[in-house]
C-alpha cells in the first residue's frame, strides 16, 4: 500500500499544479495529506501502538531498470513520520485563508510530502539520497517563490554542499561494504568509516542548522511564506536529525560502532556543538528585531538541544532529543503561523513596529501564548518534559560543560519569549482596527497546539511512542507511566504538578474573586507621576532595542561569529574567482599563446 500513498501524492502533485483556485487546491491537498498520516498511524501496530487499524502494508521495492529502491518502515521513521505528517494538515488548513491564489504552494507541499515519505521509508542509501535531494529541491522551489536573492543563494549553496557531502559519505560506505542496503552495511571502527560518518553528519547538520552551518536559516525563514516556514522549521529541519539518528543508532551496524564512538570524542563534540548552538543562537534571538528572524534563531537554538541529546547518546538523552524534536515541531510551527496571522492582519514583521495585537486577536494570542510556554519550557508544558530529560541526561553523563550551557540557554529563551509576547501582542494598542485572523487560520493554529496539550498531561505516551526505537537501538527504555517519568536521578510527575497547581490556585482564585474590578482604558495609566494626555501621542511601547543594556555588554563578543568568517571566506573566493576570470582577457593572441603553451607542456610532460 506504500505504492498507493505515493501514487495518490504524485497524482495530487500534478493535479494541483494546474489548479489556480486557492481553496480547491487547499482542500485537495488537505485530503491528500491525510493519506500518509493514516498510513503512519496504521503502522503504529508494528510498534505496539494501536491508534487506527487499516492494514496498510509497510514494505515496497521499486525496480527500475537495474536499480532497486527499497522501502520499509522502522521505529525511528515511524516516530518522525507521525511527527511530520500530523504537522501538515493543520498547516494546509491554515493556508486555506492565508493565500489568495494557488501559485505553487500546494503542489510543492505535496512534493515535500512525497520526499519526506521517501526519506523516512527508504531502507537503502540510494532511495534515501534520491528523496533527500528531492526534498532539497522542493524547499528551494518554495524559496524561489518569493525570490529573495540572499535566501536563494545561501540555501542552494548549503543544500548542494550538504548533498555532495552526503553523497560522498554514501559512496565511501558503499565502496567499503559493497552494498547500499541499511540492513547489510556493517559500520566498522576504522578510519574510512569515520571519514564517511563525519561527511554524512556534516551533511545532515546543514539541514539541521547546527552552528556554524546555520547561516542559511535566518534569510530563508524571514523571506518565505509562513505556512511553508512553519513546515520547514517544524518538520523538515528534523529530517537532518533523522539522518543522524539513522546513522548513529538505527542502522544495524551502528551498534558495532558505538563502542568506538562512545570512547571517542566524536559524539561528545556533537553534544558540545549542539549546546553552543543553543547558547549562541539564543543570544542572537534575544537582540533580533525581525520577528521571523527571531523565530529563526530560536529554531536554531531549540534544534541545538536535539543535537545535544543525540551526542549524549544515553537512553534518557535520546528520549529527550526525540521529545524535544516533537515539541519543537509543534510549538515552532504554531509560532510561525501566529506570526503569519499577525502579519496577515497588520502587514508588519518588525517587533518594534508591532504591539497590542493581542487585544484584537485574542485567539491567535492564546495559541501563541501556549506555544511560547512550551518554547520556554514552563513546567507542565510538554516542552519542559523534553528539556528536563536532556538536563537529566547531561547530569547523568556528568557533562559539566554542557549542562550549565543548556540551562542558561533555557533562561535565555525566557528573554526572547517575553520579547515576542510584549513586543508583538501586548503593550500599546497600535492596531485598534484589525480583526481576528480568519477561522481556518485560527483552527490550524489550535490543531497544532493539541498534541502539545496531550503530551503536557501524559508525557508517558510520548515515551511509549519511542520505546520501540530505543529498544531496537539497544538502549534501555525509560521506566514510566503515562504521567510519571522515572530516571536514575529524579522523577517528574505531571499529575503531582497539576494537582499542586490546582491547590496553589485556590488562594489566588479567592483573592481574584474577593473584590470586584472594573476595566479601564489601556492608556489610562501612570507614568512618572503624570497621566499622559490621550490627545498627545507618546509612544508607550518600549519595544525598540529592548535589551539594550545587555546588548551593549554582550554584542562585542557575538560579533565576528560564523557570518563574518563566511563573509571573509566569501571575499577570498571572490578574489580567486576574479583571478580566474582575468584569464579570459579577450585578447586572441593571449588565447593562442595558451594553446601553444598547453601543447608544449603536455608534449614535454608526455615525452619526459
Amino acid at each position, binding site marked *: 500500500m506504500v505504492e498507493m500513498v505515493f501514487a495518490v501524492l504524485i497524482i495530487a502533485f500534478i493535479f494541483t499544479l494546474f489548479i489556480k483556485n486557492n481553496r480547491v487546491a487547499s482542500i485537495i491537498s488537505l485530503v491528500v495529506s491525510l493519506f500518509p498520516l493514516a498510513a503512519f498511524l496504521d503502522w503504529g501496530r508494528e510498534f505496539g501502538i494501536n491508534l487506527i487499524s487499516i492494514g496498510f502494508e509497510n514494505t515496497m521495492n521499486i525496480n527500475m531498470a537495474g536499480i532497486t529502491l527499497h522501502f520499509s518502515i522502522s521505529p525511528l521513521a515511524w516516530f518522525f513520520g507521525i511527527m511530520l505528517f500530523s504537522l501538515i494538515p493543520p498547516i494546509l488548513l491554515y493556508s486555506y485563508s492565508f493565500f489568495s491564489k494557488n501559485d505553487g504552494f500546494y503542489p510543492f507541499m505535496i512534493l515535500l510530502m512525497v520526499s519526506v515519505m521517501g526519506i523516512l521509508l527508504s531502507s537503502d542509501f540510494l532511495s534515501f539520497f534520491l528523496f533527500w535531494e528531492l526534498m532539497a529541491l522542493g524547499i528551494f522551489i518554495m524559496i524561489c517563490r518569493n525570490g529573495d536573492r540572499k535566501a536563494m543563494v545561501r540555501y542552494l549553496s548549503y543544500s548542494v554542499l550538504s548533498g555532495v557531502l552526503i553523497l560522498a559519505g554514501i559512496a565511501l560506505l*558503499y565502496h567499503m561494504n559493497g552494498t547500499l542496503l541499511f540492513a547489510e552495511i556493517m559500520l566498522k571502527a576504522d578510519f574510512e568509516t569515520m571519514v564517511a560518518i563525519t561527511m554524512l553528519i556534516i551533511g545532515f547538520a546543514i539541514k539541521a542548522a547546527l552552528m556554524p552551518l546555520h547561516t542559511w536559516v535566518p534569510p530563508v525563514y524571514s523571506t518565505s511564506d509562513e505556512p511553508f516556514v512553519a513546515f520547514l522549521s517544524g518538520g523538515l529541519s528534523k529530517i537532518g536529525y533523522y539522518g543522524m539518528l539513522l546513522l548513529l543508532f538505527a542502522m544495524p551496524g551502528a551498534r558495532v560502532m558505538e563502542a568506538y564512538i562512545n570512547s571517542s570524542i566524536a559524539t561528545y563534540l556533537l553534544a558540545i556543538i549542539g549546546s553552543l548552538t543553543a547558547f549562541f543562537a539564543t543570544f542572537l534571538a534575544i537582540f533580533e528585531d525581525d520577528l521571523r528572524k527571531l523565530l529563526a534563531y530560536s529554531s536554531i537554538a531549540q534544534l541545538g538541544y536535539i543535537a545535544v541529546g543525540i551526542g549524549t547518546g544515553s537512553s534518557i538523552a535520546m528520549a529527550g532529543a526525540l521529545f524535544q524534536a516533537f515539541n519543537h515541531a509543534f510549538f515552532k510551527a504554531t509560532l510561525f503561523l501566529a506570526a503569519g496571522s499577525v502579519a496577515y492582519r497588520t502587514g508588519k514583521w518588525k517587533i518594534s513596529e508591532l504591539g497590542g495585537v493581542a487585544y484584537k486577536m485574542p485567539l491567535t494570542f492564546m495559541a501563541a501564548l501556549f506555544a511560547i510556554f512550551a518554547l520556554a519550557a514552563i513546567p507542565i508544558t510538554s516542552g519542559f518534559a523534553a528539556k528536563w530529560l536532556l538536563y537529566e541526561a547531561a547530569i547523568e553523563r556528568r557533562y559539566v560543560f554542557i549542562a550549565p550551557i543548556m540551562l542558561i540557554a533555557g533562561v535565555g529563551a525566557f528573554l526572547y519569549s517575553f520579547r515576542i509576547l510584549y513586543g508583538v501582542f501586548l503593550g500599546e494598542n497600535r492596531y485598534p482596527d484589525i480583526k481576528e485572523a480568519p477561522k481556518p487560520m485560527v483552527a490550524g493554529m489550535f490543531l497544532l497546539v493539541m498534541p502539545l496539550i496531550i503530551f503536557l498531561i501524559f508525557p508517558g505516551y510520548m515515551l511509549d511512542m519511542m520505546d520501540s526505537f530505543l529498544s531496537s537501538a539497544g538502549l534501555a527504555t525509560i521506566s514510566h507511566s503515562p504521567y510519571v517519568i522515572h530516571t536514575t536521578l529524579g522523577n517528574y510527575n505531571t499529575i503531582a504538578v497539576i494537582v499542586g497547581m490546582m491547590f496553589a490556585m485556590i488562594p489566588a482564585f479567592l483573592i481574584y474573586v474577593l473584590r470586584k474590578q472594573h476595566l479601564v482604558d489601556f492608556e489610562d495609566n501612570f507614568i512618572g507621576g503624570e497621566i499622559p494626555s490621550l490627545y498627545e501621542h507618546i509612544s508607550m511601547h518600549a519595544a525598540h532595542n529592548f535589551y539594550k543594556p545587555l546588548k551593549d555588554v554582550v554584542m562585542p563578543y557575538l560579533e565576528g561569529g560564523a557570518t563574518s568568517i563566511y563573509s571573509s571566506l566569501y571575499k577570498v573566493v571572490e578574489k580567486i574567482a576574479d583571478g580566474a576570470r582575468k584569464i579570459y582577457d579577450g585578447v586572441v593572441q593571449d588565447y593562442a599563446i595558451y594553446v601553444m603553451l598547453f601543447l608544449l607542456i603536455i608534449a614535454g610532460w608526455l615525452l619526459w
Partner: protein
Amino acid sequence: MVIHPVLLIAIPLLFAFLMPLLKRAKAVTIIILLFNTLLAILMFHNVYNNGPLYEIIAFSPPIGIYLYVDNIAALLAVMINLLAFINFLSVEKVEIKFAMLYLLAVASSTGIVITGDIFNMFVFFEIAAVSSYALVAWKRDKEALEGAIKYMVLGSIASVLMLVGIAFLYSEFRSLNIYDIMNRMDEGSVLILLSFAFLLTGIGVEAEIFPLNGWVPDAYQGAAGSIASLLSFGPSKAGIYAIARLLMIFSWQQSYDLALSVGIMTLLIGELAAFRQENVKRMLAYSSIGQMGLILISLSMLDSTDYAIIAFFFLLVSHAASKGALFLLSERKGFGSNASKYAGIVSVMSLIGMPPMAGFWGKWYIIMGAMQMEAWWIIAAIVFSSVVEAAYFARYLSTTMQEEEHASIIAAYPPAIMATLTLLLGILPFIYKIATIGGVING
C-alpha cells in the same frame, strides 16, 4: 531493416546545398531534422538489439572511409539530432543561409560521433567549425564578429595542430582507421606521444577544455541564444566524445592522469570564472566550461571504474539539454511564463545535480566512481565547484525568476521541451542498462 548510418550525414549535407533551390527553408529544415532524429532513433534501436553497426564507403577498412556506431554513439546521435530539432523550433525567422549552416553544423557534429576514421573526424570537425564561425557571426554586430573571429583564429590553429597530430599518427601506423590504430597501439614509437599531444590540443579547442577555451566565453556571448545552444550541444559535445575516443585509443595511465588534471583545472577555473559574472550568456559559457571539466574528469576515470562511462553519459546529456535550454532562455531578461520558469528551474537543477533530473545520476555515478578510486582530490574539487555553481545559479535564478517578460510560444516551449528531456531521463534511468551493455567503443 538495414539502417545506413551514412544517411544521417548525407541527407542533411545534400539538403543543405539544395536549400537555395528549395526556398521554404524552415519547413525543409524541420522535416530533415525530424527525419534525422527518427532515423537516429531507429538506428539506436537496431544497434541496441543487434550490436554495433559498421558501414564502409569506397575502400575496405584500413584505408577506406569507415563509420562505426555503437550504443553510446547512436545515443549521442539521437541526442544531437533531437536537440537540434527542438532548438530549431525556437528560431523565429529562418533565412536560407542560416538553415544551410545549421544543417551543416548538425550533420558534421553527428559525423564526428559516428565516424570511425580519424581523418574523417578532422573533416567533420572542420565543417562544424566553419559553419559555427558563420553562425556565431550571424547577428553581424560588433560582439558577434569579435566572438566569431576569436573562435576562428583558435579554431584554425586547432585544425592545424590536429592535422599535424594526424600526420604523425599516419606516419606511424600508415592507417587512419581508429580501431586499426587502437589495436596496433603497442607497435607505436615516441612519435605517438607527440601525436597524442597535438590531437588533444586540437580537439581540446573544440571540446572547451582549459586552457584552450579562450574563445568560449566570447563566442557564446556574441552569438544568438539558439546558436549558443547549438554550440553547446552540438560541436562541443561531439568534441568531448572525440576526446573520449582519443583517450581510449591511447589508453595509457599517463593520458588518463593528464585528462584528470586538465579536467579538474577546467572544472575549477570555469566555475570560479562564472561565479562573479554578470552577463548571463557569458556566465552560462563559463559554466559550460566547468561542466566540460566535470565530463573530462569522468572520462579520466574510464580505465579505473565502471561508473565512469555512465557518469560520462548522464553528465553529457544533462549538460547538453540543460545548457541548450538555458541559452535559449538567455535571449530574454526573465522567465515570465510558467513554461519558462519550469524550463529554467529544471535545467539549473539538472546542472546542479538534483533528482529527478538526469544530472543527478551523473553526480551520483561520478562520486561513486571517484570513491571507488579513492581519489580524494576529485571529491574535493567536485564539492567545492558544486557549491560555487549553486551560488551563481541561485543568483541567476533570483534575477530571472522575478523579471516578468512576455514570451511567444515559439520562444517559451522549446526550452521547456529540452528540460523535459532531462527530467524524463532522470526519472527513467533506462540508460543505465544501455550504458552498462555497451562501452564507448569496443572495436
